[in-house]
């Protein structure tokens, strides 16, 4: 074994040439290979309009066999690649900078559904909400519900360990993935996890979920389905101060009742939503609203609803409204889920953060975020998963204004540092990707980052899959085993 880790593979544009394009076209069909810069424009960004990277080539296999053939062809040629689902990510994770982009959104087959055991096996390109629709008739759904669920794919969700409002009660993606069939970057196919009760040995499913496309491509994903709740109650409480709303969150969490969702939307966001086509009827004069959902068996649910409403009022809620029917509930949720889209009306660019803080720190952190915004004269909008402490402070701005852009970036870094200092983390559900890679050293020591590099190299020793993401490259370069622990040359 070498004393040092292999040096990271550098994208070699010379290897991504017409001959590769021709070979890939022979596998997937000429229409499914994009090689001209004008054709690749769509794929230069994800849903975070901050980073633009041009892939050298994009290929769109349509079947499992085509994915395998493509990955093996890339392996044979030593070409780096980036797997991509629907491109709805918010961290720049699915951008291919001068390398090959492998689009998986054509693999949309639900392979099998086992109603009795409440599991389904799907291809990676199945859209999140399409899976829930496919199992709706049996009273089941797939619980993780990122706001982009109408477009994002299960494969992308696995890569990012995606969350969503209802993850407060039901858990994030990793809690719902039972087994994976994966093609490693070297073309080897491995099966991780299993569905027949208990699994022994290393939790390789756990390691793969959230690996942001750096460990290979999932060919088949077996998910746990959840029963549809017997009843759902959605409450909207509005507050005249953000602090009161934040205190209410802590009070609800302390009751032991776990809401299905507990979301906070501040005034700036409410106004953006209410002036858009997604208007949900949120009061625009409130400092913040809480969108709270309780679900489960009918018996006992009203009691919990009353307990939550009582805590809202006791903490200063001006009104507490309960959605009367499914139409009103859908409308209340649409406002929340389309909030990022609504902000598009304010400015051309948007930075989205995803830090998580301990829930007891919410009032203090929110107050300081407001202060940071004022100091740097940028408008911070907060719309987030308050029950988890998962903040999404967003700043809408005009990137053509250099001065404003500079102030936005300073404010963002201060907000991130604030959240980390409060005992939090840099990303709760969006992933590190490109966007937060520079923050990784705020929360992890070089040794911790090096351990991540070690894990990555087990799956992808050449680091060809999604190069340059998640862990800063220099952390890998610096990774040397302690001399004492290094095996002898003959070992």
């Amino acid at each position, binding site marked *: *074994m070498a004393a040092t880790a292999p040096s990271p593979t550098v994208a070699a544009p010379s290897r991504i040439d017409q001959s590769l394009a021709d070979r890939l076209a022979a596998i997937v069909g000429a229409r499914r290979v994009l090689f001209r810069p004008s054709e690749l424009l769509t794929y230069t960004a994800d849903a975070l309009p901050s980073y633009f990277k041009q892939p050298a080539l994009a290929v769109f296999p349509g079947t499992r066999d085509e994915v395998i053939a493509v990955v093996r062809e890339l392996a044979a040629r030593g070409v780096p690649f980036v797997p991509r689902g629907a491109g709805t990510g918010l961290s720049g994770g699915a951008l291919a900078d001068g390398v090959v982009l492998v689009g998986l959104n054509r693999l949309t087959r639900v392979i099998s559904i086992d109603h009795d*055991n*409440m599991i389904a096996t799907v291809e990676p390109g199945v859209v999140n909400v399409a899976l829930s629709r496919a199992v709706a008739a049996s009273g089941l759904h797939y619980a993780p519900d990122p706001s982009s669920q109408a477009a994002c794919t299960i494969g992308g969700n696995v890569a990012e*360990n995606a969350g969503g409002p209802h993850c407060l009660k039901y*858990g994030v993606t*990793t*809690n719902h993935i039972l087994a994976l069939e994966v093609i490693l970057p070297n073309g080897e196919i491995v099966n*991780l996890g299993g569905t*027949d*009760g*208990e699994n*022994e*040995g*290393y*939790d*390789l499913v*756990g*390691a793969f*979920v959230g690996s942001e496309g*750096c460990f290979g491509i999932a060919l088949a994903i077996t998910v746990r389905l959840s029963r549809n709740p017997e009843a759902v109650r959605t409450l909207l409480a509005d507050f005249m101060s953000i602090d009161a709303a934040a205190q209410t969150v802590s009070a609800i*969490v*302390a*009751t*032991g009742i776990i809401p299905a969702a507990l979301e906070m939307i501040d005034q700036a966001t409410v106004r953006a939503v209410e002036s858009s086509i997604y208007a949900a009827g949120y009061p625009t004069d409130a400092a913040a609203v809480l969108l709270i959902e309780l679900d*489960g*068996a*009918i*018996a*006992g649910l009203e*009691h919990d609803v009353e307990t939550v409403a009582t805590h809202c009022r006791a903490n200063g809620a001006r009104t507490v409204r309960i959605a009367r029917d499914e139409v009103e509930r859908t409308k209340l949720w649409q406002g929340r889920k389309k909030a990022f889209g609504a902000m598009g009306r304010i400015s051309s660019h948007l930075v989205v953060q995803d830090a*998580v803080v*301990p829930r*007891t720190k919410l009032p203090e952190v929110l107050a300081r975020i407001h202060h940071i915004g004022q100091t740097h004269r940028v408008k911070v909008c907060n719309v987030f*998963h308050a029950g988890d*402490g*998962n903040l999404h402070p967003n700043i809408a701005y005009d990137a053509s204004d250099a001065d404003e852009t500079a102030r936005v970036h300073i404010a963002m870094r201060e907000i991130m540092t604030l959240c980390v200092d409060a005992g939090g*983390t840099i*990303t*709760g559900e969006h*992933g*590190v990707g490109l966007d*937060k890679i520079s923050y*990784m050293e705020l929360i*992890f*020591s070089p040794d911790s980052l*090096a*351990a*991540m590099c*070690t*894990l990555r190299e*087990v*799956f992808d020793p050449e680091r060809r899959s999604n190069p340059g993401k998640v*862990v800063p490259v220099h952390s890998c370069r610096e990774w040397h*085993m*302690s001399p*004492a*622990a*290094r*095996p002898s040359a003959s*070992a």
Partner: protein
Amino acid sequence: MAHVARCATLGVGMTTSTVSSATDLRDRIRDASARALPLRIAGAGTWLDAGRPVRSVESLSTQSLSGIVDYIPGDLTLTARAGTSLAEIRQEAGKHNQWLALDPHGGDAGTLGATIATASSGPLATAFGTPRDLVLGIEFVTGTGTIARAGGRVVKNVAGFDITRLMTGAWGTLGVITEATVRLHACPQVDETIAVSITGDAPSVDRARQLLRRLPFTPYACEVLNAALSNSVIGRAEPIVLFRLAGNLESVAAQRAALVELGQPFDISPEAWSTLRVAESPMAASGPRGETGPIVFRLSRHPSEIGTTWTEANRVVSGISGALLHATPARGVVRCIVPTTSENLARLGATLDAADSKRIGERLPEQLWAAAFRSRVMTGIPARLKSAFDPRGVLNRGILGDAT
């Protein structure tokens, strides 16, 4: 303690020492690595003595690496050193009407680190999942003697690759957990334990599963006990389904009413759950090579096949007097506890080998590992992980099989 028993079976003298800090542990691992001295890593020695064959001459216990580091009740998270006992966590969290919803078999004397390292869970897994669902972050020392952290102290976190889950259930073979942050839950308003008598045949066990599948709620726990285990846990020598129902008053009343479909429920002391967790402890120690404690293993299939798994478990232990069985219908698992005798070992060697269900050894004499359990050779990604995180094979060598 039981690792001494392992020494007896291995026929070598094993020394046990403790570590006082993560840096102390790091130095010990570096030293062991330099001397190519394999270490057996243990917590309180209640689970890692499970009989998995480990080749080592020195045992290192993290038990004195203990104490709660950080606990903010409002965050429902708690950080403790690996050697902290579950009992201490239970006591501290209980002061704030909170709890760690993990009830691994063996009781609360076990340590947090070992619970996570072995991914041990108990009946509460029906509602709360296993350690992988409750651990938020860890500090660990790798086989190369590097102290690292993964995850964090908040309830939601996707920063970096998920080494927390990789280490959970890795039996200390990739790194030694020195500290962990776990998610707590608030105690429910009502927490009731009831039982329903059943016939104990496969269809009656499957009826319990079908009911769970259909009901609009998930009980905290649901275990099917055979007559022998029921007798030892609640003093009634008949098969039962034991339920733990929790929530508000109205919810629990409705849950109770819904279970009538299975039979007339009767109230049971909640002590039944702690008794169940240590059901194996009264079994006499009489192994042919001086082993202590009983033989414990689990059989597993899809939950929908719980009837088949139950039948198979009964077949595997048929003719063994006093065999204790309990099934977790929601998880498709049947746990079997059998006294360690020469006859039982011989019988199980044959019957287990013929069983079609997935077999998971929990506490087995070495001869049974060899006779009836899966290949002890690690290949593919597991082997690569082992050689990447513990290149000299210092940590719990062999416990999950040998890397090729």
